[in-house]
């Protein structure tokens, strides 16, 4: 139990790297698709809806497998520079996680934008503020505040999702835990250590979000 701890801690770094990279890219992707969803153009609207429907309706495992095993099959892709990225399981995992969290984030942000009272935007307009500034200085800050609790859940779900990276040969926390279990046959002890590390991360994320929620709450 004690000997497995340092190995698992090293693997935690991989998990954290995967998580932070996919959350970072996923946030931009989510914001992009949320804006498309709010667009009046039916084509763009439907496109964004289709994206989020497909990525939320299929298991993350399928998405990783399509990107890692499936895309390599296209001969044309192998000749382009994209192949440098797509042959690495690490980047494939990040792409899959980004697309997945982007879909969920776009839904969270869309509903946050929709809950903003029209009066606030009208007030901005009547003060003569340009549409662009209303969007960046009024709508986005309010939407961020509104979406914090849901986004916190999404971060935790994504942290658990990164465990799937172990299925495409990456040695993240779950991958190393599985390796130790299958070599030592001590599933319960390894589960307690690895599970404890995950729980600790969940605990930290939960509290950071709680702190941010308090900091950005309207009633100060």
């Amino acid at each position, binding site marked *: 139990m004690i000997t497995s701890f340092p190995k698992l801690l090293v693997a935690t770094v991989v998990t954290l790297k995967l998580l932070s990279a996919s959350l970072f890219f996923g946030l931009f992707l989510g914001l992009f698709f949320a804006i498309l969803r709010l667009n009046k153009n039916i084509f763009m609207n439907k496109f964004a809806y289709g994206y989020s*429907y*497909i990525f939320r*309706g*299929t*298991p*993350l*495992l*399928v*998405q990783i*497998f*399509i990107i890692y*095993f*499936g*895309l*390599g*099959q*296209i001969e044309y892709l192998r000749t382009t520079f994209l192949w440098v990225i797509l042959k690495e399981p690490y980047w494939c995992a990040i792409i899959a996680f980004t697309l997945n969290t982007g879909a969920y984030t776009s839904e969270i942000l869309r509903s946050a934008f929709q809950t903003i009272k029209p009066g606030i935007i009208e007030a901005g307009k009547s003060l003569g503020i340009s549409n662009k500034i209303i969007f960046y200085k009024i709508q986005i800050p309010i939407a961020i505040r509104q979406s914090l609790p849901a986004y916190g859940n999404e971060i*935790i779900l994504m*942290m*658990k*999702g*990164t*465990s*799937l990276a*172990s*299925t495409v040969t990456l040695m993240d926390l*779950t991958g190393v*835990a*599985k390796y130790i*279990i*299958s070599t030592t*046959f001590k*599933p*319960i002890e390894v*589960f307690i250590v*690895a*599970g404890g590390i*995950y*729980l600790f991360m*969940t*605990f930290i994320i939960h509290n950071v979000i709680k702190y941010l929620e308090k900091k950005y709450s309207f009633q100060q």
Partner: protein
Amino acid sequence: MELLAFGKTGWGDELFYATLMTIAVSITAMLVGFFFALIFTPLKLSKYKTLNLVGNFYTTVIRGVPELLVIYLFFFGGSGAIMYVASIFGYYEYIEINAFITGSMAIGIISGAYSTEVFRGAIQSIDKGQFEAAKVLGINRFGQFYKIILPQMLRLAIPNLSNVWQITLKDTSLISVTGLVEIMRQSYIAAGSTRDPLFFYSFAAVLYLLLTYVSMKLINKLEVKYSRGY
């Protein structure tokens, strides 16, 4: 298209049975989850601090740990634990548990943690007066729960339970790591032997989308049924 043909030449019938297996595992896991929720929801709502702690421990741990890790625990630890219990009763032969049972137990425990939270939220949002009125009318505890609280609770719980169902359905794809032949595993086998992973994994994605779509339609009907009068 000939890849999907039924019979010996294609993978159509195999994938069809795999889809049935996914549905079977999801339903079993969901029911196992309800069973766990039935035990842990009262614990979470109990007056006693220790019981609360037990309930909270269950939902926090399961919801904070990756599903895959729980599945590995069951897969590698399941038969060992059962053999240990059997050895107490003097049975020392090797016992292997069926992948279906291991998988649906593992997913069931995960789904149970989510169901527990849903039921807790639903019960807590029922007006306190309803409990008091039932008590005043002299209805026994059994009747209070089944005739008054449960119907109101279901109306509130169904939309969230449909989310739990979606999560459970998608989690079953993870059981493929234990070798149970459901959609994901069958696609893996087919992709391996035809060297056409793109097609088979995309087809798996379509099957999952179809399952979520159909189940959403069915759940919506249920939702309408239970919100009569509102």
